[in-house]
């Protein structure tokens, strides 16, 4: 398969960015703005656009951003909450959803593997750079559990179950179902270093294959959020056949993990942005625009593609950060942090 494959080795070297002397790629005031808006004092990241619930993905992003902002104490606060309130499952992974209105707060003990990957990844990075063996130990346990419980082989490819239960061939008529945006590619080599026996390299291959094939489903040439792998990849039942809020992260993850596959990234860039650089949610079958998103956080993704491929400078409101909603603001800081570290010429 041409395209997004062979980049893990470079990722490892990228990953090892200056453990001792690193200048935080997220500035203290940016982190403070983010924290003041989305971090509850209890240590939970609040999804402001979603009834103020929290989820493992949000905790994972919060930990990663706190690490990137070099804010150890906030990291500890988020970590403490994550551990106390969500890392409850017998298999050592996180319950995916935490509702402040419910008792017990965890109403669904299933996990979400993107959240698990983000949490384990952030803990591994912080454990390494801050000499915190407790975090490394926790990350290692999560990596081992993910490798053992959350990977499966479908048609010769190793893929990531979105959750440990509910998405398999035995659970749904169109199962197995996967979510290509759950592949946090940059985390996979780190998982491999913690858990060398896990099929992490194969999982990277599998993810690339899932993305490439699911981009062939409709004429939009964009992948849907949820993909059925029962036979030929197809949009999964019960979800909109849409390049939506989930899938928009895919190019960001690819780029952060080191991909410079121009053909692949260009097809995302063409498909996901309109002439003004706004982000489109797209009906993958027709290519029609379902929704246009103007938030600088969303726009930062096609902008980052242009930066990486063509050194196109980022627009002013993308270069700077001011928080809006939890999700686009998170994507914004991740884009910005990457541009600062790897592509200062775009700033």
């Amino acid at each position, binding site marked *: 398969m041409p395209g997004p494959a062979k980049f893990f080795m470079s990722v*490892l070297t990228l*990953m*090892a960015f200056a*453990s001792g002397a690193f200048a935080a790629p997220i500035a203290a005031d940016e982190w403070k703005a983010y924290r003041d808006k989305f971090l509850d*004092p*209890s*240590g939970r990241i609040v999804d402001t656009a979603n009834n103020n619930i929290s989820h493992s993905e949000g905790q994972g992003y919060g930990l990663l951003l706190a690490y990137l902002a070099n*804010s*150890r*104490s*906030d990291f*500890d*606060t988020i970590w*403490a*909450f994550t*551990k*106390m*309130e969500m*890392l*409850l*499952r*017998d*298999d*050592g992974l996180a*319950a995916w959803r935490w509702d402040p209105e419910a008792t*017990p*707060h*965890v109403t669904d*003990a299933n996990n979400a593997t993107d959240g698990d990957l983000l949490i384990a990844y952030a803990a*591994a*990075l912080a*454990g*390494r750079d801050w*000499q*915190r*063996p*407790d975090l*490394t*130990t*926790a990350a*290692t*346990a999560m990596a*081992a*559990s993910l490798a053992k419980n959350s990977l499966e082989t479908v048609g010769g490819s190793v893929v990531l179950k979105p959750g440990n239960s509910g998405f398999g061939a035995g659970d749904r008529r169109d199962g197995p179902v996967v979510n290509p945006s759950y592949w946090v590619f940059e985390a996979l080599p*780190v998982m*491999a*270093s*913690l858990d*060398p026996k896990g099929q992490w390299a194969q999982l990277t291959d599998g993810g690339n294959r899932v993305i490439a094939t699911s981009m062939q489903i409709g004429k939009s040439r964009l992948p849907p959020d949820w993909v059925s792998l029962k036979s030929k990849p197809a949009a999964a039942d019960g979800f909109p056949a849409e390049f939506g809020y989930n899938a928009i992260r895919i190019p960001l993850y690819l780029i952060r993990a080191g991909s410079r596959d121009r053909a692949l990234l260009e097809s995302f860039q063409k498909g996901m942005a309109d002439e003004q650089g706004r982000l489109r949610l797209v009906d993958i079958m027709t290519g029609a625009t379902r929704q246009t998103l103007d938030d600088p956080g969303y726009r930062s993704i096609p902008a980052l593609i242009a930066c990486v491929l063509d050194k196109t400078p980022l627009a002013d409101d993308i270069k700077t950060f001011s928080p809006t909603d939890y999700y686009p603001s998170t994507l914004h800081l991740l884009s910005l942090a990457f541009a600062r570290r790897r592509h200062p010429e775009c700033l």
Partner: protein
Amino acid sequence: MSLRPLLLAGVVAASGILVLQQSGMNPFAAQEDPFAKSTPVDSESVHAVAANGAQQHPAPSASSSPVSPANDQVAQATPTNSPTPSPAASGPVVDETALRYFAARGDTKRLEAEIARLRALYPDWTPPENPLAAVPQGDPQLDQMWRLYSEGKIADVRKAIADRQTREPNWQVPADLLDRLAVAESREQLMNASNIKQYDTVIRVASSNPAMLTCGDVDVLWRVAEAFAQTDRKPRAVDAYLYILRNCESPEERLATVQKALDLLPRSDLDQLLAAGRTIDGRSEFESVLGEIARRAVIASDADPTVRVSAADIALVEKLAVAGGARSDDLMLGWYYLQHENPKLAEDWFRKALAKERDAAAAQGLALALINQDRPQEAEDILYEWRDASDDVRAVYLAAVANMLAIQPAPDFRGEVLQRIVAEVAKAQDAASAQQLGWYADSLNQFETAERWFRTALGWKPDDEPSAYGLALMRWKLGDQPGVRDVQTAWAGRSERIPTVGERSVETAAIRRRERDRLEIGPSADPASPRPVHAVPGALPQPLSPDRPRLPAAESPAERPRSEVHQLYETPTEVSSNAHRDATTQAAATYLSEEPEVARRQTRRQKSDRGRAAGCRSTQDPEGLSPNAALSRGWCLMEANRPIEAAKAFEVALRGKGQTRSDAAYGQSLAYMRVGLTDMAAVAATRAPFSNSRSVEINAALLESRANSAFQNSRYVETLLALDERARIVPETLDLMVLRGYAYLNLVRYGDAERVFRAAARAGNRDAMRGLNDLWAARNPGSNPY
């Protein structure tokens, strides 16, 4: 510094911390802790970890080292095999910040807990004599953090630390505070995991934080014990509960410990816990739980009758029922005694419950207790009010009806009782009860009414062979030969006995019996008109057919001359030996009859007819009798229920020829069968040719006997084979269906057992209902069906 190994080595009971080293008491000894085996990375790079493998040891760290007590070796580690430098060796610096803080606040509970904790950590440490003395620390911010901690505001402590580190980048958080925070957070994690039943996590967290397993926080110990119990590690749950009972003092918590264990542990384990209880003023501290435990034993045994309840438990529940007056106890005991075949006691308890509050459940229990005491009329009377309460209650009501109709001699039912029975049977379209009404009418010689009921039963259940048989029989008694043939044609090939209606001795005997009854009642009774008793009302929903007029009036108020009937029954009547023989042949035939209700009826009647056996009351050697006289004597002895002598008389009669010899062989094989000598019965049956119908009867009886004896010897497959063979020649009786059901049950063929029990239970058979109950218990071990 790494405190954990020392802590684990140095834990002493006085500290109140769960003593993991105590032999056999470490509930975590075999627990796998994924964190325990993982290796913290060195500080260079994540990559290096992969290269170096997982053998490195944690670098000494101020924060808690995740060494797990999961591993026995670690749990019992002494400082010498500890991989980390022993703080004891160089003299530990004991952080007394928290101690002084709690002392200053006058928080004695936390102060004591902290002293216990520090003692456990540092066995050589002595607490300051006056912790207040050195209070001034001059760090109000740290004091504030401790205050937040002591108020349980864990997140606020984290926040305060974060804020201070932002302001003062060089400020070091006291290790003690971080340790305490970690423990508090782990406690929260454990509680949350417990709340969503993630029991492995509970155990994993507890095993990583043994410091939180103290009497000061019994809830944690309870959660851990529960997690063990819920994950099939009951012995460890017992250890954890026992730990509390041996070490913790709070009476309320001790009692609550046993209460929590009630739901999770079997009785034998509970007894271990009870044995660890204390006696205060001669009374067990757990007295209030003992009643609950006894109640559960009763309930468990109710669900599974093979579970024995100790006399002490039963006595305790009875005592509580009387003393406390709880209606639920009355009901529980009622069901218990019902299940354990003591219907009289069951009746008493259900009556008590009913006296406190009238409801369907108590009435249903009482009705079952009455049915089991052969008092179905009272059962019907009590349950009538509740008949529509539920399907279960209705089933019991109809069973009461079926049983009361089967009473022999047929009792007088008040007109209103019969009316309501009929109405309920009609409403339920209950074919089994309709059939019983048919037999009841038959027993009152109301053949036309009986015929109508059998027809009605068939209308509701067209494949009901006994009703069809009853229908044919009634038509034959009414002289309706075309009607008999209609039934016989309709059932050709589907019933062994319907084609023989009109041919067999049974029916001949029935006619004779009718004549005899007429004799007994007195000459005034005209056989063509019904006896002057309450008539059985015809089936209401069934339109009267014009060709069967003269239905007895539904409300005939005339009283049966009861005393006279009694007198007549008890006066030996002069009857010919021929009549004897007919009566006994009939008795024998119905004894073997395929229709159990008829059999039951006849069995009872036999008792009433006992006086008629006077003709062979004397002991006489049959040897000198003629074959015919010996034959008569044999039947007479059979009627007197002296089958061994009867067999001898039949032996003499076998010297006769033709019909006499055939009758003698028949009689002898019946006689041997009655005393259980099946083999000899089989031999006798070969000694003379029988008529086809007799041969069927004898073979059926032999197979029944074989099935019974196979069952008693637990040879269930053979039981089924015998029953199958028997079913090929005659329809299976309800009793044998029950036997078949139990054979299936014992062979764990639950589906088959259920089908058979249900079929028999629908016909009102009590044993089948019990069978369903047993089946339920077998399928649901440990549950209580009530």
